[in-house]
């Protein structure tokens, strides 16, 4: 027993290094990340040979180690992308079926007190700022509901006063009466604040770490509360503890020069969350940096083949995680990735507040590449043999509660 009263592993029996160390009690992902054999994993991701890749592909999905995952990210594995794709597709079909969960982003505000050098909302940029009124929020949501969406992701910049927790609670309560499923992608909160948002009707939280690489993180987040790397890193854990049903993570690909580094950290993060918070559905996003008012250019952009390889490797290492591709990517690559391992997607997105009902009045966060309407994307999914799923869960809204009290039903 150590000072915390928990039993430690006997020092004489080192655990087999599977690359991922399961969480000890009371341990956060920051601790786990420190214990990760990053050097060995990166070496595997750079130099794995053909035989190593064959072994990683042959391993039963649940036995795949983080070293297997790293091997699947390697340049040599890129030469066997078709094999990876077949295995990834097979696994995705078995676990998720021929379905694609649809969601839409709804930007509530582009006010921001933080400076992220890559973001179109950054504090000092002279852009058209806007925060939606309650009525404006409802108008946007109703537009999305008419298009078929039942799952809406609410987004804001980082502004303590204008888009604080009371603001979010208020907007969530307003929307929960009409929208079956609500999630947020906003500044990070404490566990207690997440609990408040959960009781207001929010079920999901998305927090991109942006970059898991601490030095890069410090370089691109130059001012504002978001500079606190670890506070953000532990956000998903606080959200899960607060009872959120879904937690989304990811790195913004293009910030750190080595996408394989980000992939390894994100996969370890997902495994940590799944092991520790067994009730929480974990999704992983693989967003690539897009042009924005910031003018930021990645030094080493992640290529299309890299992205496809990453999606396949994530699926092979995380058979049960949701994988998200948003409308930021172009139609051709999206349609391809849908068939490899993606399970969640957006369509017809606007990244400026009010953009669905009054496009371009405010400045957008970044340019989306897929300009197809939700109906067009849904039709394409059906052509590809996938059923677009708009409603996958409904937090019971007051309107449905009224049915219990004797209101009219569907038949």
């Amino acid at each position, binding site marked *: 027993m150590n000072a915390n009263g928990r039993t430690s592993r006997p020092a004489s029996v080192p655990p087999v290094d599977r690359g991922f160390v399961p969480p000890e009690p009371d341990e956060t992902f920051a601790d786990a990340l420190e214990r990760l054999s990053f050097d060995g994993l990166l070496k595997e991701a750079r130099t794995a040979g053909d035989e190593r890749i064959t072994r990683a592909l042959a391993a039963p999905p649940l036995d795949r180690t983080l070293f297997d995952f790293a091997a699947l990210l390697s340049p040599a594995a890129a030469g066997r992308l078709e094999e990876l794709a077949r295995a990834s597709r097979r696994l995705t*079909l*078995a*676990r*998720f*079926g*021929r*379905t694609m969960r649809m969601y839409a982003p709804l930007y509530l505000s582009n006010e921001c007190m933080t400076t992220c050098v890559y973001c179109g909302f950054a504090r000092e940029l002279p852009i058209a700022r806007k925060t939606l009124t309650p009525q404006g929020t409802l108008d946007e949501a109703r537009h999305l*509901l008419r298009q*078929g969406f039942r799952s809406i992701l609410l987004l804001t910049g980082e502004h303590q006063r204008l888009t604080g927790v009371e603001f979010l609670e208020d907007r969530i309560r307003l929307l929960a009466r009409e929208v079956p499923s609500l999630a947020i992608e906003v500044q990070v909160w404490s566990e207690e604040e997440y609990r408040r948002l959960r009781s207001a009707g929010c079920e999901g939280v998305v927090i991109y770490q942006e970059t898991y690489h601490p030095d890069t993180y410090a370089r691109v987040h130059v001012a504002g509360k978001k500079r606190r790397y670890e506070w953000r890193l532990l956000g998903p854990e606080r959200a899960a503890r607060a009872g959120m*049903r879904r937690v989304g993570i990811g790195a913004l690909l293009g910030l750190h020069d080595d996408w394989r580094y980000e992939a390894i950290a994100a996969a370890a993060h997902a495994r940590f969350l*799944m092991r520790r918070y*067994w*009730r*929480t*559905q974990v999704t992983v996003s693989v967003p690539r940096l897009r042009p924005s008012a910031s003018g930021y250019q990645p030094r080493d952009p992640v290529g299309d083949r890299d992205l496809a390889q990453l999606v396949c490797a994530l699926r092979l290492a995380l058979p*049960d995680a949701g994988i998200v591709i948003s409308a930021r990517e172009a139609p051709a690559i999206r349609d391809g990735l849908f068939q490899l391992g993606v399970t969640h997607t957006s369509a017809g997105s606007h990244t400026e507040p009010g953009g669905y009902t009054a496009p371009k009045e405010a400045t957008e966060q970044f340019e989306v590449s897929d300009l197809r309407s939700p109906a067009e994307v849904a039709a394409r999914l*059906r052509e590809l*043999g*996938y*059923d677009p*799923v*708009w*409603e*996958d*869960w*409904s937090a*019971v809204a007051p*309107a*449905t509660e009224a*049915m*219990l009290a*004797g*209101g009219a*039903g*569907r*038949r």
Partner: protein
Amino acid sequence: MSHIVDLADPLVIAGRSFGSRLIVGTGKFGSFEVMREALDASGTEMVTVALRRVDLEATGGPDILEFVDGDRYLLLPNTSGAVDAEEAVRLARLARAAGLPSWIKLEVTPEPRYLLPDGAETLKAAERLVAEGFTVLPYINADPVLAKRLEEAGCATVMPLGSWIGSNQGIRTRDAVRIIVEQATVPVVVDAGLGAPSHAAEAMELGVDAVLVNTAIAVAGDPVEMARAFRLGVEAGRRAHLAGGAPAREEAQASSPLTGFLDRLHTSQADPAVTSP
């Protein structure tokens, strides 16, 4: 030649008869049209639909229920997605308020990856739903004691899993399911993990009353043909069960029986040549 197998062999659940012992789930299909064809080919008479995917308020848009003929199939709403008893009970009440049948396939799965059922919450929800007049068909782990508890609570069936949902690994819970079948006084339905018609046949041979299949049909290369194959697998297994299978032998039969000496002993006793006076 007379048939040993009674061809009129309905499955009876809560007083209602079904000609098919295959229940089909509606998730994971690529389209509602393919699903409809697969249901037709499967010969099923009972179809389960996730309430979370039903547009209960009829707000418009394509709705799965338009593709499931309520006159032909008993619609079995399920509570998938519910993470505790309270959510499951609320979904069931909503379904009934919306005019759906008061049969409910009770699923309480707090864990999103394997979707394994929470026995404690399932029992709690079952007790409440039975009291409210629902016909309750609970999805459970292959736990014989839980099965008896649910039966006592008034459930219409018990539905143990063969292996975890979507795994297509077949009936890995064979020994526990055998005990559940032996002890049950309500129909036993193997609910999850059957990945091939041979798995379904195996379950039926064990003596379960019906099987529920979804993923293996929905994600097959040709879902309609696979539905047909499952229909045949279920029928084959059921007939084999009714026919009374030949017991499996542990080893080849010895050509000279080990107890043969007893016969020889008997013969020798009867032999006057060795009988002492």
